[in-house]
């Protein structure tokens, strides 16, 4: 890594203050994306502001209407949480599928969401569940939050503090993981909110998106068979050594059907 300075403030206000004063500073939460990126020299912040001492940013609370997860909450804790398992089991399972146990012990929902990796799992979870991203200054709906590959609606010095999820009627996540990194080659979150069906796809395209044709069909008939012959347009899909765009398009259908079956 290139050299950098490091600070670990113990309050959000202190972190925001430092971030505002220093254009080349970056905040680090779990570091499971930022540190590998810096090791590859793809990022070189002058200053790292470590949020891990700000305990108030972690925690899970919820009831039968909504579940709120603090930005610094580790994936392992979301997966193991009684509150999440009882109210949004599909989200607990999604968190349990991220990376590997050591990554899950450290990685955070705030970090994953702010980064918006095209192959990350949480963006599909948030978009599918119609979540709200809460920051130090406003609230942003998932529909408006994920704007492009590695890009979000966040301002340059804005810090996520929590993510709030309405409790759905049923929801499940199905993923075809890369065997080594376990990133989603394709991951689909299917959610029946009670009034609509949302199908959020990650891994396939540069940014998470909703498969609206599947949503319309599933609203009338929530079954895997109902979307059996739906083909998604893979012409803009990602193409790399792991999978072609065509294969990803095929996987979207397979994972969507698996998610529907799991949610039923």
């Amino acid at each position, binding site marked *: 890594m290139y050299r950098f300075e490091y600070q670990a403030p113990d309050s959000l206000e202190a972190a925001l203050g430092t971030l505002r004063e220093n254009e080349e500073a970056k905040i680090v939460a779990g570091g*499971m994306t930022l540190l590998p990126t810096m090791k590859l020299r793809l990022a070189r912040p002058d200053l790292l502001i470590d949020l891990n001492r700000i305990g108030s940013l972690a925690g899970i609370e919820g009831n039968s209407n909504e579940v709120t997860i603090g930005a610094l909450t580790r994936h392992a804790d979301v997966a193991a949480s009684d509150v999440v398992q009882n109210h949004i089991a599909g989200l607990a399972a999604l968190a349990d599928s991220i990376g590997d146990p050591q990554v899950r012990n*450290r990685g955070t929902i705030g970090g994953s969401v702010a980064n918006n990796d095209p192959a990350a799992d949480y963006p599909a979870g948030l978009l599918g569940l119609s979540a709200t991203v809460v920051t130090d200054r406003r609230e942003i709906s998932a529909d408006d939050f994920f704007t492009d590959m590695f890009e979000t609606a966040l301002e340059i010095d804005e810090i996520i503090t929590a993510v709030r999820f309405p409790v759905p009627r049923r929801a499940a996540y199905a993923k075809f993981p890369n065997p080594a*990194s376990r990133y989603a080659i394709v991951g689909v979150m299917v959610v029946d909110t009670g009034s609509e069906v949302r199908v959020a796809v990650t891994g396939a395209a540069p940014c998470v998106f909703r498969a609206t044709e599947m949503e319309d069909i599933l609203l009338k008939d929530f079954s895997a068979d109902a979307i059996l012959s739906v083909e998604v347009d893979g012409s803009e899909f990602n193409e790399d050594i792991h999978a072609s765009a065509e294969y990803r398009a095929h996987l979207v259908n397979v994972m969507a059907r698996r998610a529907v079956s799991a949610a039923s």
Partner: protein
Amino acid sequence: MKVSFSVNGKDVSGDVEPRTLLVDFLRDELGLTGTHVGCDTSQCGACVVHVNGRSLKSCTLLAVQAQDSEVTTIEGLADGDKLHPMQAAFREEHGLQCGFCTPGMIMSAIDLLQNVPHPSETEIRDWLEGNICRCTGYHNIVKSIQTAAKG
């Protein structure tokens, strides 16, 4: 900058650049070379240690991030000459060949049994997703963990 934490029950301190990785601090500053650098991309798990009781990849942590923590490495498991039950199980079941992945496997497996005392074979194999072995085909690693779980 100054950093201080405890490793295997002993207080340690150092003056490091922020960019010093925890794995490099353990190996180069403290001479604890049982923790290995394999892939350097957070995938292989040869660097797994425990920080405050949870298994983490020390190649993806800065030494300064371990401030005030309790770190356990492979060197901290045995009680004098008496092997930790997980180490004993790996020896008994021939759970290693070259040994490069082994410290990470053992540290990871100990965390598994903390979470799930009697894991199924599937649960063991799923847990080891973050640990890659080139030699053994994982078969005896799984057996070692099953043996250790029997207690």
